[in-house]
């Protein structure tokens, strides 16, 4: 019997037999191999087609992209095609499998999948890894368990129903017991069952339990191999200098001094700049420093912050396209200005932001006549194949991507620029080449979180209730660059994420989008549109609450009556923080709630502001409903992480522009949060019993508005632009 709820099965799956998605094969030496399919986001498939020009939308069929191997020694190995960048995917994914397989956790291993066609499309982002794997990995585990039980029952000549699996073994009548390893060969000869029974969640032994990360030890003794650590025999190291202005290009390079340095092999103008190739990193950097380059700064040589602001404000005058409408939409704002009512208006601005992963961009490539190997800390293996294929002319099947640990991803490692450089240079010098970016390159040549301007209007009735809500999102589109086919009629749905389908019960609401692309390259930054719109929506909600003369928590509460999950996170975070109860002198609370990636998060920030206008965040109370929790350790860690990431952006620096490029170059001027400004974070996980939501990203959006709402409580000053500037809050 299959206990799956219909709602958990996608329509496409329901039509096709499960048999097509799991296949078994015997292994030499008595092992078992199960191949199965994890769903891939539609946009990834579309994008791969776009990038490579070779992937068609083929007929649906069996295309396994995950494998389980059970060897006679009882070791269960799962290959996963997801990148570990700190989010805990290497621990969570085998947990799903081992739970339903009743495997012995100590005998479970995980291997990073190579990018062969056998593993299908590969990419990691959008807080999707566990959400996509939740059903198929558990089904694969349950299938393996059922086959092992059947194999044991046949050997013992008893009914399978009289046997059960436990901790890596099948247990039968009269105390019979056989390890999974001993049963693997027999199980591999059995047909794959059409129906398997999944566990009742109350019987879980791994899912929902705080299982230690499998990658903790190698990350405490220096053994973990990141992209920058890759060693390939005969490898050279390259440093690439790029034009400081966006859209500029090389005019002239005098490389005589660089070439004279012992250990410098080559100086190559490449499509993105000038590469110095040397025996080692430091020699390459010395060579780079010795280059005399004249850049043609191109059409954006005068671009600066004021120019970006002017572009956004001009675009804001356009009507844009509708992304969401409830009731009479925007028209209701004007109509609702009944006598005694109130119109609230505000605009918010946000800067471009760099990702600033701790590991600067890097990639190692080895282009040979018939193949190309890429070793990279990457979030987008399939795109890497497309990129390398275009540069080398080799078919994608000849491009082999070897994924290392990622020293932070946050969306940056979805991009192809660093991979393209390594492939281009290796092709030119016919040697393996590792490209290592300086921190300065990484800061100045990012794909930035888009800058944003938001125009907000709301109408309050005479009774203080919210009658109508209007939000115009003005900013660059990431999709227009990355997946243009997903932009329809000028609407980039990613740009309005978190500004549409709000959990609040709004009688009239409208969200519009005005695309305003600028010369600054933009990309996915932890939580993408949500971090932008979450700030705007939750700040403005606070403004409206105050305009209505109501407590911001109770005002939100009244609007969340029909959304139990949102309400519960709101109530929980408020209770954790002691909302409304006395705080230490000079401390104030701010609250913000946000939904995204299938999860809902409310945060309450406890903040003080000193007479100089400097903001200190003392404590954050965070309540998260991410549905079924797979690993509570990871959920808590990701909330802590997302809060610190968001606080850097709220409290410290945005990217500043001058002379066509980025002003900042390193951590001295693009400051990120350190120990001294990190608040104490309490996390409470709400068990709603729903399917798992994402956890890598949804903790970021609420923190900035929670802090600025607290700043308002402390000072009466509304922060409508980030980062917070002390001079605007001086007493």
């Amino acid at each position, binding site marked *: 019997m299959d206990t799956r709820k219909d709602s958990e099965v996608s329509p496409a799956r329901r039509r096709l037999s499960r048999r097509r998605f799991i296949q078994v094969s015997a292994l030499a030496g008595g092992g078992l191999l199960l191949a199965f399919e994890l769903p891939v986001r539609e946009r990834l498939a579309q994008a791969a087609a776009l990038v490579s020009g070779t992937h068609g939308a083929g007929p649906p069929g069996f295309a396994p992209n995950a494998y389980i191997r059970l060897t006679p020694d009882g070791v269960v190995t799962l290959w996963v095609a997801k990148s570990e960048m700190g989010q805990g995917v290497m621990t969570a994914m085998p947990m799903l499998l081992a739970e339903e397989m009743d495997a012995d956790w100590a005998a479970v291993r995980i291997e990073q999948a190579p990018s062969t066609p056998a593993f299908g499309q590969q990419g990691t982002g959008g807080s999707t890894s566990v959400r996509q794997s939740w059903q198929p990995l558990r089904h694969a585990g349950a299938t393996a368990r059922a086959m092992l039980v059947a194999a044991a029952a046949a050997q013992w000549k008893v009914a399978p129903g009289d046997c059960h699996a436990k901790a890596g073994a099948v247990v039968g009548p009269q105390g019979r017991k056989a390890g999974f390893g001993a049963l693997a060969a027999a199980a591999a000869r059995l047909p794959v069952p059409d129906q398997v029974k999944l566990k009742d969640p109350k019987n879980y032994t791994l899912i929902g339990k705080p299982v230690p990360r499998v*990658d903790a030890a190698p990350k405490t003794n220096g053994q973990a191999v990141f992209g920058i650590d890759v060693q390939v025999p005969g490898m050279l190291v390259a440093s690439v200098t790029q034009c400081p202005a966006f859209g500029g290009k090389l005019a002239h390079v005098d490389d005589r001094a660089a070439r004279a340095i012992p250990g410098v092999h080559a100086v190559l103008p490449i499509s993105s700049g000038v590469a110095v190739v040397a025996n080692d990193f*430091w020699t390459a950097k010395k060579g780079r420093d010795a280059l005399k380059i004249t850049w043609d700064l191109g059409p954006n040589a005068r671009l600066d912050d004021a120019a970006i602001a002017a572009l956004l404000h001009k675009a804001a005058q356009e009507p844009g396209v509708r992304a969401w409408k409830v009731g009479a939409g925007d028209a209701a704002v004007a109509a609702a200005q009944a006598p005694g009512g109130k119109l609230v208006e505000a605009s918010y601005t946000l800067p471009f932001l760099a990702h600033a992963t701790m590991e600067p961009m890097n990639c190692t490539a080895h282009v040979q006549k018939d193949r190309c190997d890429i070793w990279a800390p990457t979030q987008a293996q399939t795109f890497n194949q497309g990129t390398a294929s275009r540069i080398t002319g080799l078919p994608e099947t000849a491009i082999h991507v070897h994924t290392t640990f990622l*020293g932070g*991803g946050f969306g940056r490692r979805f991009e192809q620029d660093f991979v393209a450089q390594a492939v281009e240079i290796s092709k030119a010098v016919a040697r393996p080449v590792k490209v290592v970016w300086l*921190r300065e390159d990484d800061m100045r040549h990012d794909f930035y979180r888009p800058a944003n301007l938001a125009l907000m209007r709301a109408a309050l009735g005479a009774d203080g209730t919210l009658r109508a809500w209007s939000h115009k999102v003005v900013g660059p589109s990431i999709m227009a660059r990355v997946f243009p086919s997903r932009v329809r009629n000028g609407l980039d749905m990613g740009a309005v994420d978190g500004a549409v389908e709000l959990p609040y019960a709004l009688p009239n609401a409208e969200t519009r989008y005005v695309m305003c692309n600028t010369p600054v390259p933009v990309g996915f930054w932890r939580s993408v549109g949500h971090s932008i719109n979450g700030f705007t929506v939750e700040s403005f909600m606070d403004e409206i609450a105050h305009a209505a003369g109501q407590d911001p928590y109770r005002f939100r509460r009244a609007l969340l009556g029909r959304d139990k999950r949102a309400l519960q996170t709101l109530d929980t975070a408020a209770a954790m923080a002691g909302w409304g109860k006395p705080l230490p002198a000079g401390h104030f609370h701010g609250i913000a709630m946000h939904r995204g990636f299938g999860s809902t998060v409310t945060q309450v920030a406890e903040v003080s502001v000193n007479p100089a206008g400097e903001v200190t965040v003392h404590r954050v109370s965070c309540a998260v409903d991410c549905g079924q929790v797979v690993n509570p350790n990871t959920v808590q860690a990701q909330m802590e992480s997302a809060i*610190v990431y968001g606080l850097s952006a709220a409290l410290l620096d945005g990217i500043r522009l001058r002379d066509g490029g980025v002003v900042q170059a390193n*951590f*001295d001027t693009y400051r990120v949060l350190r120990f001294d400004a*990190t608040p104490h974070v309490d996390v409470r996980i709400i068990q709603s019993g729903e399917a798992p939501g994402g956890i890598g990203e949804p903790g970021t959006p609420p923190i900035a508005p929670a802090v600025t709402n607290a700043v308002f409580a402390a000072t009466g000053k509304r922060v409508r632009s980030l980062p917070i500037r002390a001079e605007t809050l001086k007493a």
Partner: protein
Amino acid sequence: MIKLDVNGKVHELDVSPDTPLLWVIRDHLKLMGTKYGCGIAACGACTVHLDGQPVRSCQTPVSSAAGSKVTTIEGVQGPEAKAVQEAWIAAEVPQCGYCQSGQIMAATVLLRQTPKPTDAQITDFMNGNICRCGTYQRIRAAIHQAAAALHKG
């Protein structure tokens, strides 16, 4: 030729004396646990011990390390290092893990100098080490945990 003692092993290296210790450790000695993060001593990812003191190897010319004992994450030993590494695993500190070699090298010296550090002392000592995954709260807890384990042990 520069003579360099790294993790108790003496190497004779043909490198330019101005080469940062970081790149000698990584590219010449192939010890990859010490990380490059910023190159300007602003992030702490490259922290190693020079005669037991924490230094930013990205800003330490190899010539100035000659004659000293260099210790990297691969060679760090002693009760404090062991307690720190164990506490790091127990407290589930690492996320992406890239900065953690530097964090551990710094925390080890902190505990050697200040066996029972206060929160303020931890902040003061560790503030030069950036973690973009935001593991600061867990690092703080792990340092307290390691201190307690050393006190007991």
